[in-house]
């Protein structure tokens, strides 16, 4: 899983590439740590290149969104491919996480 984080003005753009699974979930969690502290974050997560997420990935996205909302910010996941979207759909996470 490759991750890039760019800040442009008050917005943060995160780009994800590859598989998010047990082998790299801890690293991913560490990579997004800076997003857990910024005040009133506004985060777009581009998932065009993400090919899979495991339930650990779902948990990380969930805790990131909770943290963002608690700070009065917003987060949206964009451009999911159908395989990744299906994981969110069948677990009900499409009802929880903002996806566009």
């Amino acid at each position, binding site marked *: 899983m490759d991750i890039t984080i760019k800040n442009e003005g008050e917005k943060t753009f995160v780009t994800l590439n590859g598989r998010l699974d047990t082998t790299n979930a801890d690293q991913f969690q560490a990579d997004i740590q800076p997003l857990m502290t910024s005040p009133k974050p506004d985060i777009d997560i581009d998932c065009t290149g993400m090919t899979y997420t495991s339930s650990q990935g779902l*948990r990380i996205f969930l805790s990131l969104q909770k943290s963002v909302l608690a700070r009065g910010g917003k987060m949206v996941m964009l451009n999911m491919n*159908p395989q990744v*979207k299906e*994981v969110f759909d069948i*677990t009900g996470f499409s*009802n*929880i996480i903002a996806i566009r």
Partner: protein
Amino acid sequence: MKLDMHCEMILDEYRDRLPVLNKMKEVVLDILRRTLKENNMVVTAIEGRVKTEKSLTGKLELKGNKYHTIDDITDIVGVRIITFFSDEVDKIAALVEQMFEIDWDNSVDKRKMLEIDRFGYMSLHYICRIPKSLYEDPQQPLLNEMRFELQMRTALQHVWANMQHDTGYKSEVEIPMEHQRSLNRLAGILELADEQFSRIRKEINDYRRNVQSLVASGNFDEVPLNGDTFRSYCELHPFRRLAVKIATINQAELYEDSPMPYYKILLHLNMKTIGDVERMRTECSDGAYQLALIQLAGTGLDIVAYSVALQNLCIVKILKLGFGVAGLTSMFDAIYGESTYNAQRADRIYQQAVRANLV
């Protein structure tokens, strides 16, 4: 206008006491914020101020001879609580009476001072002291000796008082009669609005309590389906059994989320009562589980949302009604917004439903 020596002495005393006065304001604000929070009371604002030297000088110029010492001036520290509803003023006053020592001789309920045919300033003013049991600093005994003024009023009373104050007149006696009449007429309208807001809130609360008891009684066919009744129904966790069964497929963690987004789907499905929802739950549970089994088994996904139970119930209901792929697409469009993906998802689920003999 130059102050006489007596007033100058009061002013000197004020300057000496300024640090304690500021401390007092902070202590009172802190106590009030904490107490209101502990009692789950939400107010529009809690604000406080220490009278400025300029303002105190003005007061002394006007009526300095009325005060023997600075302690006779009870509003140097002033705190105000602004509520949403008029009945909350009395509730807060009751709390304040329990907390602070009230100087009843100098406290006034301006709401009761107006004649029945007059409208104007409505606010409750208490002159208080901080009891040692609430806060004590041996270095600053004045904190428990000095008095402060606590005003309690509604947001609309606050608006009126500010508007009147904004006219620049210090007393209503000075305002030209025709303007005073206009202001008082407005006070009447705002008093009526305050009363109506309280009445409407009471009616809504009564309605909700009634709905909750109707839902809790289990007479679901008698309960019309609306946002309030569905919320009360959801508080009974009607989809928990199915959600737990679905979670068991992968020994998954069940994440508690709200099923409320599906309320609009129930309306689309022309459900009229909670009884209709209950029938869907009992008639479609097996299908909803079978669908989840096909989707989740073998994926290793070990977390599912509670709402997935209602999501699958709606899917099965739509398929049972014969709405097919188009019906499912409409459902996803309504929940997530229109997108081409919704039709693909609907088609995939339809194929899964065929495999599970649901259609």
